């Protein structure tokens, strides 16, 4: 394409097309920029801030910042690694993440990021929120708000892919939480087990009933290879 231009990520030249974000262009070039609230196919939100990079020295989220000709992007600097670690730690202490009995363990993107960053324990005090209600009302789906990291993927997927708007955020600040399109219960919404919204949850907050623990330990997504490896392999294959 004639409009193609280039910029650099950690000194590596990356090609991009107009309209691409920094994350997309880097990913196409086999460079993994860690992300959590973003997922390919969903409108980027810039909420979790894990994909923060420096663009010409200024912090921007790679998931929604447009790539442009000649910009210098820093991705894996000590400062950014520490910053991302802090954000991952914050998400771990903010909720109640009891990995050892979570059906998503081994396939959880939050956990996988912590593994990739070599985090043995978060550096912040655990908050142990007591007010996070589970919703078991739906016959096929359940919500475990203890595990929710407020990434908003389900909100966007339900709205934009399912055309339903089953989920949205209510309240604000530390009290912000995911709510359903009904007075209280998921069963009173038009949520369905085939909804895309169920496929996008990075953690074990939005789960299908009756399907836990079907992949043995050792064969799960992130048991042996860090999250992002699939993107980084593109680089080595070329």
């Amino acid at each position, binding site marked *: 394409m004639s409009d193609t231009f280039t910029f650099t990520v950690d000194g590596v030249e990356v090609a991009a097309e107009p309209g691409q974000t920094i994350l997309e262009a880097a990913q196409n070039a086999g460079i993994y920029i860690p992300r959590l609230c973003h997922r390919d196919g969903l409108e980027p939100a810039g909420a979790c801030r894990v994909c923060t990079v420096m663009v010409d020295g200024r912090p921007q989220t790679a998931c929604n910042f447009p790539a442009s000709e000649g910009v210098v992007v820093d991705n894996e600097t000590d400062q950014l690694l520490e910053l991302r670690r802090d954000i991952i730690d914050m998400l771990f202490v903010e909720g109640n993440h009891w990995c050892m009995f979570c059906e998503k*363990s081994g396939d959880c993107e939050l956990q996988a990021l912590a593994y990739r960053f070599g985090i043995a324990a978060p550096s912040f005090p655990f908050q142990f929120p007591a007010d996070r209600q589970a919703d078991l009302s739906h016959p096929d789906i359940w919500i475990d708000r203890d595990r929710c990291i407020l990434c908003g993927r389900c909100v966007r997927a339900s709205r934009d892919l399912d055309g339903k708007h089953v989920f949205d955020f209510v309240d604000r600040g530390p009290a912000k939480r995911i709510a359903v399109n009904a007075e209280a219960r998921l069963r009173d919404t038009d949520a369905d087990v085939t909804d895309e919204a169920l496929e996008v949850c990075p953690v074990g907050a939005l789960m299908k009933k009756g399907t836990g623990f079907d992949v043995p330990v050792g064969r799960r997504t992130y048991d042996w290879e860090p999250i992002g490896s699939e993107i980084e392999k593109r680089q080595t294959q070329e």
Partner: protein
Amino acid sequence: MSKPKIATTSMCGCFGCHMSILDIDERILDLIELVDFHKSPVDDIKEFTDRCAVGLIEGGVSNDENVHVLQSFRENCDMLIAVGGCAINGDIPSMRNKVPLRECLDEAYLHGPTVHNPDGLIPNDPEIPLLLDRVYPCNEVVKIDAFLPGCPPSADTIWTALVAVLNGEPLELPYELIKYD
């Protein structure tokens, strides 16, 4: 030259992490070459009589006895390692942190579906430790120097960590040994 001493304890945990220590199998023979076990459920030494190089802590801090034990470990060990999820974040026992203590006791001793307690009393002998308002991660009670995540951490994880620490090397676990489950 005398060998460095190692102490271990299981506080509010399930002893699974200690099982995992034993899971190092025949490497325990190598370990015995490297260290002497001091206060530990392994040899049943109850009190510290010597300074230890390393203290391995399993379990979170759930009651006054746990506080007492953890305090004595901090006082008598050069390095404390939180072993396993419970010691790091309270894990399963910390599920009670969502429920007020009074309700926990009522459920356990008075109103739970499987409770048979005709006297309607909550056990209260002075020898019984008093529960804290919630389960505390060890690092919130004393300073913890290193963390081995997992429920339990695998024998390989424990072995790798111990060898590194005892040889004075930095404790860096490879990717496949950092697991939270």
